[in-house]
């Protein structure tokens, strides 16, 4: 193709601190309107901001996780613009002295996306337009955000998608954000221009506030084609800010460059500079858990599990933690992972349950199942066992008597099945001849021989399997 897109990304991520960035109002989602507010976060006259230590710490951890350098000295600046969702008419953000600089995220094909900077800032309130009336809720105002700004290093929308998925996973793994798009705790602005190879890129168009991964891909694809079309027609691309319309799947003009905001940045006089010591950086680095990429590598190389399975389990960092606990006891990574992916996942119905690893029994309990599965319980029992354990929140021992399984399971049961078939050739040949009902008699005989302790369904399966041979 003659044209290449040049794409950069600004990602806003909400930090999960307990209080807001400049006041002690709780950070919460779904509260009644204007009830998580105080004079500070509603911009009442005479109020002053005071920076939350945890915001600085979480941002540094986020930065370290994507290979950024921490600035020893940084500061907050005011970004001035008037809109009713911004209660002070300026956003306290960072301009020319961000907390974190020059990091990168490496994609699976080895292509490194450079991260120019990460800075901390406050979120604005929420506006609702309803029947010619503007309604404002400031609960979200003052919620801490980091903004992760990349260099224009993306060449395709799928790279953007992979970068975002990786970034989200990293933030979830280090537990500084929930990264839930539906709660707007992760939002993106996309910068896109079109480049003819060998030439400088054209004017940059910014697409504001796209709020799902699928929309981001759509917005990029639409915008690229729009710009290419214009170039082919010999028209110039206007530098402007656009928004993505999810209904039409198109981007549309928000404001042109002439109207571009003059943000009149200047240092926030109400806040001292932020100084970060080497000791602080070191202690935060120590707090960082293992990052997803190295975790996958370790699972594949040391635990010898499949890459695909490893990638699946680390999507939910807490489930991966749980899995590792099982392995510690079971010493059987493959079987433990298959237990997680095949049986435990099925019992976690919502994303939230998966995120939170809401499992009603302990890793020790499930490790017992793995251990028993290795001989004592036949594989076909595992589903029933795990489902009952998780549903009732009880251990294997509380629910089952292991001797029952031993009497009737595994080789023993198979032996009994074999004998019954051998002893009842008529019933066996009837079944083979198409009289499916005759299997009932055989099941009855097996059950009698096991004193009714075998699983009827399993017996029926074993008989069918045997008879089909």
């Amino acid at each position, binding site marked *: 193709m003659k044209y290449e897109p040049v794409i950069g990304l600004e990602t806003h991520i909400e930090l999960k601190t307990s209080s807001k960035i400049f006041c002690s109002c709780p950070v919460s989602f779904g509260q009644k309107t204007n009830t998580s507010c105080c004079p500070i976060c509603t911009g009442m*006259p*005479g109020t*002053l901001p005071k920076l939350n230590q945890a915001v600085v710490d979480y941002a540094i951890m986020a930065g370290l996780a994507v290979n950024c350098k921490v600035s020893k000295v940084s500061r907050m600046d005011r970004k001035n613009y008037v809109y009713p969702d911004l209660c002070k008419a300026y956003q306290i953000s960072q301009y020319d002295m961000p907390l974190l600089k020059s990091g990168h995220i490496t994609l699976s094909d080895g292509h490194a996306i450079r991260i120019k900077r990460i800075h901390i800032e406050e979120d604005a309130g929420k506006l609702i337009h309803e029947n010619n009336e503007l309604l*404002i809720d400031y609960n979200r105002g003052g919620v801490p955000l980091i903004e992760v700004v990349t260099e224009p290093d993306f060449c395709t929308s799928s790279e953007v998608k992979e970068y975002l998925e990786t970034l989200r996973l990293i933030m979830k793994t280090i537990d500084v954000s929930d990264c839930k798009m539906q709660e707007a705790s992760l939002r993106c602005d996309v910068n896109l221009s079109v480049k003819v190879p060998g030439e400088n890129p054209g004017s940059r168009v910014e697409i504001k506030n796209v709020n799902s991964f699928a929309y981001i891909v759509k917005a990029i694809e639409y915008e690229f084609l729009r710009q290419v079309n214009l170039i082919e027609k010999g028209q110039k691309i206007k530098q402007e800010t656009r928004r993505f319309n999810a209904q039409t799947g198109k981007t549309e003009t928000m404001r042109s460059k002439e109207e571009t905001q*003059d943000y*009149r940045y200047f240092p926030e*006089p109400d*806040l001292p500079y932020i100084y970060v010591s080497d000791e602080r950086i070191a202690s935060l680095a120590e707090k960082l858990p293992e990052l997803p990429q190295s975790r996958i590598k370790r699972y594949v190389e040391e635990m010898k599990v499949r890459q695909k399975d490893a990638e699946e389990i680390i999507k939910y960092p807490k489930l991966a933690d749980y899995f590792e606990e099982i392995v510690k006891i079971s010493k059987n990574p493959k079987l433990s992972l298959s237990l997680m992916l095949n049986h435990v996942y099925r019992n976690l119905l919502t994303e939230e349950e998966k995120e939170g690893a809401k499992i009603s029994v302990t890793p020790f309990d499930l490790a017992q199942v793995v251990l028993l599965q290795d001989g004592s319980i036949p594989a076909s029992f595992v589903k029933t066992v795990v489902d009952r354990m998780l549903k009732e929140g009880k251990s294997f021992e509380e629910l089952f008597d292991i001797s029952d399984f031993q009497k009737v399971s595994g080789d023993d049961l198979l032996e009994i099945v074999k004998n019954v078939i051998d002893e009842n050739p008529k019933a066996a040949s009837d079944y083979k001849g198409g009289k499916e009902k005759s299997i009932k008699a055989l099941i009855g005989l097996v059950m009698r021989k096991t004193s009714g302790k075998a699983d009827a369904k399993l017996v029926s399966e074993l008989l069918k399997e045997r008879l089909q041979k």
Partner: protein
Amino acid sequence: MKGKIVRLHEKLINGEITSLELTSKYLENIRKFDSEINSYITVTQEEAFKAAKATDEKIAKGEKVPLLSGIPMSFKDNLSTKGILTTCASKILSNYIPVYDAFVVEKLYEQGAVLLGKNNMDEFSMGSSCETGYYGRTKNPYNYERVTGGSSGGGAAAVATDMAVYSLGSDSGGSVRQPASFCGVVGLKPTYGAVSRNGMIAFASSFDQIGVLATTVEDTAIVFDTISAYDAIDATCSGKKRDKCFEDINRDIKGVKIGIIKNLTRELSGEISKSIKDSCESLKSLGADITELRIDNLDLAMPVYCILTCAEASSNLARYDGVRYGYRTKDYESIDEMIRKTRSEGFGSEVKQRIMMGNYVLGAGRYENYYKKAMSIRQLIKKSVDEAFEKVDVLLSPTSIVTAFKEEEKLKDPIDMYLSDLCTVTANICGYPALSVPCGFDNSGLPVGLQLMGRNFSEKLLLNVAYKFEDANQIIYKKPKGGAYSFEI
């Protein structure tokens, strides 16, 4: 010289007078004279009586009460008072009732202070004459045709005329000291970071500091000791341990090195010049070591002040949009129109001009040449002042190069108005403490103020020197001409 607070406190605990009686006397003065002087925007009689009674009850029960308990006082109308109108002398806040108290308000309430009301000021503290506010100008008690100075002119006039024992104002370029000097009272601007700004409605955040207005140095010290404390809410408030200024305020000042700022005393009118010379003689006779010195770059102080305060103000005042509180225009069709009309109707012209000036110096392409340059010169000026403080402990100058000027005299020329703060801005630029103490009168009987400036957190020394000076020159305490307001206490 003994201050009013200690004397009144003694009378209160001796039972010679009750706080309720005292408060009534002050309220009576306000009733009689303030319709003319206009030093109050709001008078809080009910709250005052309630607080006075509370002190009286304690005393009646034999409880020990703090020095400031039961003493009637006032706040500048840019200090947030919960449940009490707080306007900044602006139409845009003409209906604003805060839901929280400023840190200093809390501190003084804790001591049992009796709030008489909220004082007039220049709109959002932008002015040096107390003429730009929505509620009209405050008149100088010494001469009604003259200004009180500003922006804390209402408080200075109230204190000068026994309409408050003391008042808290704010000082961003001289707003406490200059009106103190024009009205013949003491005015202290503390070190930046000594007093929490929490609840003070901002004009220029890195210049603003809450200050004290009182008739004597001792009173000033007592009030300052009470409000100077660490406040976790204000990130720019210092955690440094404060010296108690009222303790041994009477100590000897032998050997204290005082430097006269030559470049601020050179072009003075004969009368002011004479007052300053006499003051120096007096300090010398008290044992101070007086020298003269030059401080470089002071000619740049006013432009730097002008650029930086306008820049900060333009941003600080952008929040007044008619959405959450304050005045809102009647007719509009869009959000944008509502905000524009509200602000156009709600702000006076001085405020509008300074906001636009701020947006000019912060604007794309100008930031480097104006704001950033001014920030670096701010550092340069501080360096020059620091060099002077290597040689002396206290820097001396007049508080203002003029005495109270005629009403509207300086409204025509903004530069002329700015220059009336010529001697005071340097302290705000550096963040250093400075005070104004009365030191004489000009030929038309208008007070002259002497300014003392010190290093960071040197309020104790400044108040000590001022106390000794005041004590040695008691003659200067001449009541305003229409001195009818004063009563014996």
